[in-house]
């Protein structure tokens, strides 16, 4: 999937002056330090939170995550049914949102159906981030043949679309949870590695890395203490994006009937099961679709806001 490009969209008045105004104006020897002191704390986090879309993103994400986390705890007392109990005949308007293709209560299945998706998506993202970060940083820092090897291997993995790769893995290993996490995580890794590599390359060309080398700083410490803190911005953005895509991919696989297996309650699977009755009993489809849409929009807004916040942070550093 595509990389979203962080744009230079300054949020604070000072950074706006740096970017939009005459660069001369802000690079003054005397004014630079003055500004920094009058501006108060101006970190990536404060710039992130200053954006309206960031707040919207966090709220949307919180709503769906809250629903998915608390939902299973409310069953069966809140609705009267567990996720797999039969409530009535299929596609009847009984209960709050009717029944599904097998006559189970849609509202119950919806409340109970978000947790696994979130859990798997988070695990897959974490796996991809760890793998990608290690590979990307090593490729950039060690360079040479290791760089070539890692990047060529990336190219090969990238030649198979993520979903197709997942389908190949499911064919061989079956539609099990760990397979989903593993295959989504592994297919994220090359994309994350690219970002980590280019961010690391940007940092290691800086003189402070040369200085650390000159003082013979152990390489592991150099990576962790000098490089890592300077690539957190792009990595945070990447984590947000990959989480969005993980949710989308896992939900898609379930929707295709190749992710979570019946009779599990799962949003993607619910859509698959109930879509034949979209015109007569739409809630079994619309509820999970809405939840997935709100969730992915929320995480994407967060990722985009992070990108904007860290882009203006980096630009500010140069002043």
């Amino acid at each position, binding site marked *: 999937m595509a990389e979203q490009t962080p744009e230079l969209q300054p949020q604070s008045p000072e950074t706006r002056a740096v970017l939009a105004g005459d660069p001369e104006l802000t690079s003054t020897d005397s004014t630079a330090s003055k500004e920094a002191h009058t501006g108060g704390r101006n970190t990536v986090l404060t710039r992130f939170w200053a954006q309206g879309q960031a707040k919207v993103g966090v709220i949307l994400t919180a709503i769906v995550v809250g629903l998915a986390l608390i939902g299973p705890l409310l069953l069966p007392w809140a609705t009267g049914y567990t996720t797999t109990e039969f409530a009535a005949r299929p596609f009847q308007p009984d209960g709050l949102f009717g029944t599904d293709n097998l006559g189970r209560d849609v509202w119950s299945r919806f409340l109970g159906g978000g947790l696994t998706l979130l859990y798997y998506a988070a695990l897959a993202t974490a796996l991809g981030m760890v793998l990608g970060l290690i590979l990307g940083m090593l490729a950039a820092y060690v360079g040479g043949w290791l760089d070539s090897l890692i990047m060529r291997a990336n190219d090969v993995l990238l030649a198979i*679309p993520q979903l197709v790769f997942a389908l190949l893995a499911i064919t061989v290993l079956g539609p099990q949870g760990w397979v989903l996490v593993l295959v989504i995580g592994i297919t994220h890794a090359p994309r994350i590695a690219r970002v980590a590599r280019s961010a690391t390359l940007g940092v290691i060309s800086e003189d402070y890395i040369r200085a650390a080398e000159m003082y013979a700083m152990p390489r592991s410490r150099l990576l962790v203490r000098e490089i890592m803190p300077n690539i957190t911005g792009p990595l945070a953005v990447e984590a947000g994006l990959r989480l969005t895509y993980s949710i989308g991919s896992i939900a898609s696989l379930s929707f295709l009937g190749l992710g979570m297996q019946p009779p599990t309650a799962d949003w993607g699977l619910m859509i698959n099961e109930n879509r034949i009755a979209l015109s007569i009993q739409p809630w079994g489809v619309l509820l999970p679709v809405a939840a997935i849409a709100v969730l992915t929009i929320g995480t994407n807004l967060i990722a985009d806001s992070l990108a904007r916040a860290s882009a203006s942070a980096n630009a500010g550093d140069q002043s």
Partner: protein
Amino acid sequence: MIARLVVRRLLISIVILFAVSLIVFFATLLLPGDPARAILGQQATPERIAAINAQMNLDAPPWTRYFLWLGGLFTGDLGTSVATGQPVSELLGERVGASVFLMVAAALISVPAGILLGIYSALRRGKAVDSAITGISLVLAALPEFVVGIALVAFFSTTVFTILPAVTMQPPGTQVWDFPLQLVLPVAVLVLVVTPYIARMMRATMIEVLDSGYVEMARLKGVPERRVVLRHALPHAIGPVAQVIAIQLAWMAGGVVVVEFLFRYPGLGQALIDAVSYRDVQVVQAVTMIIAVIYVIVNLLADIVGILANPKLRTGGES
């Protein structure tokens, strides 16, 4: 110079495809169980299993089988479907055309639309139109394609309006493009999912170029704004955007799987889902390879556009 670079990219593409074929073939060796037994099911007798094994070269060592399979790919012999016993090439033949048709149709709409929206947005930077385009594309970019698809189906085919067919019917002996109305929704989903990325990337690149020293210089030379955009800015935005378009189009090769499943569109994706459900390895292998080939070709084209758009590559660096 250009020829040498293109040949180089071509060779890289071939190497990538070769590596993909290794992954695709040897991954399936992990498959538990005996394919011959799987094909024969209840009627498996030792003699018949031996016969099938001999017929499919299953007795041979993996490397021999790999090369036989690879050789088959070149001659159009994609093996035999374990599920149906049909030759895979027969099974997929028309479906390749149908899928490619779907993707090309979507690409022909989304590429120009994305580029134009991105440029327009960049030229109206900070204005309401720009915010609207950026905001909508950010939301759309977050949504998995089945969410977009279900939303469209609910709106146009079932719950709200019923003006467009929700599924694709293809009587034998006809082609998918004989029923244009059926194509509207599948193409629309792909377009809605792909366009935002292209538009966002185009906007970001264009803004970067518009802020460059040479665009400022062109304005200070008195160059009319139209010419500033078309002659001075746009050519420099095309190279990077070509890469994103390639990634998007290649990604469409994965997204098309979901779209075809959703609309019962008789393409490769539909075949792939069925094959995964039946663990029909030969078909999965073949479809994966076809999709990888599509990916590599699209990427190659993007690289060539990138080379042609870059005078430094075109003229061979310092002279």
